[in-house]
């Protein structure tokens, strides 16, 4: 390496400060602490080696997340599930598209019981994480980047290498899917009372 001291200092100030966030993301990508550690190490090593190609002024956090995700995806056997999502996504709906309800089915289920969604608070962290981790990667990453890390649509679009419209669609579907999962769990556990028969939306 022929990096100057100044640019190494830059790496510390701009990249290493995101170590916590990259680790969090790696945990959600891999679902396991030991794999998350490997992913974090590889991400920072690659980032360090490529630091002189990093464009100053772009957001280092998204840059690191992009590397982490690419490394992760390369290590993953990208199975059938991924292809299916990409195929269905070309006609993926979001609010406003014909046939897609703006009314959240989970909200409908909570009507008269807990329309503000307070039941979410009764679900323990481990279960919430398990539900996030069960989402297909495309949805999981979008939801985690937006809802947990506060990325803008543009930043998610760059990190995932897809257009902003696709980001919105993934967020919409990922959030709804996750909400449904958590709702069903809350119902099973008796945190929220089951529908009286005849008012379900799923018939």
């Amino acid at each position, binding site marked *: *390496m022929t990096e100057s001291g100044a640019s190494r200092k830059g790496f510390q100030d701009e990249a*290493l400060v995101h*170590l*916590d966030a*990259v*680790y*969090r993301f790696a*945990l*959600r990508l891999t679902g396991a602490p030991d794999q998350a*550690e490997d992913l974090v*190490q590889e991400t*920072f*090593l690659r980032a*360090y080696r490529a630091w002189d190609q990093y464009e100053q002024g772009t957001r280092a956090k998204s840059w690191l997340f992009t590397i982490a995700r690419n490394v992760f995806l390369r290590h993953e056997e990208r199975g059938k599930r991924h292809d299916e999502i990409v195929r269905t*996504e*070309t006609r*993926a*709906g*979001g*609010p*406003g*598209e*014909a046939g897609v*309800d*703006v*009314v*959240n*089915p*989970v*909200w*409908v289920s909570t009507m008269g019981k807990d*329309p*503000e*969604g*307070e039941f*979410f608070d009764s679900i323990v*962290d481990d279960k*919430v*994480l398990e539900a*996030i981790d069960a989402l297909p990667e495309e949805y999981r990453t979008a*939801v*985690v980047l*937006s*809802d*947990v*890390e506060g990325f*803008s*649509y543009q930043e998610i679009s760059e990190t995932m290498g897809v257009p*902003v*419209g*696709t980001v*919105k*669609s993934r*967020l*919409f579907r990922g*959030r709804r899917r*996750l*909400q449904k999962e*958590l709702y069903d769990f809350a119902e099973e556990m008796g945190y929220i009372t089951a529908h009286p028969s005849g008012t379900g*939306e799923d018939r």
Partner: protein
Amino acid sequence: MILDMIKRWFGGGTSREQEKSDGFTARSEEALADTRMLTCQEALEWMYEFMDGELPDADAARVDQHFKMCQACYPHLQLEESFRSRLRAAAGRTGVPEAVRSRVLELLAQEEAGG
């Protein structure tokens, strides 16, 4: 069915036909450019962009106003906020373990020295 009933409340399907990038409806410029009250349908369609801070200020103000005024829509926003804060609480607080931090720093030091 309740869902049908609600859809009727909200005026059924969308009247906005301007499509679309990647199968996702583009925000209707003229619908937001005017100053009339948003319909429930519009407010709910833009709810995520509103929550995600992706609307221009003037549009965000109109969506905000709708949710503040509309008793039917407000719980939708509350449900989403409750969901988001739960995700943040569960997934957003973890930091890197000290041992992992040390190993990353060590790895980078080695790379600097030898690589």
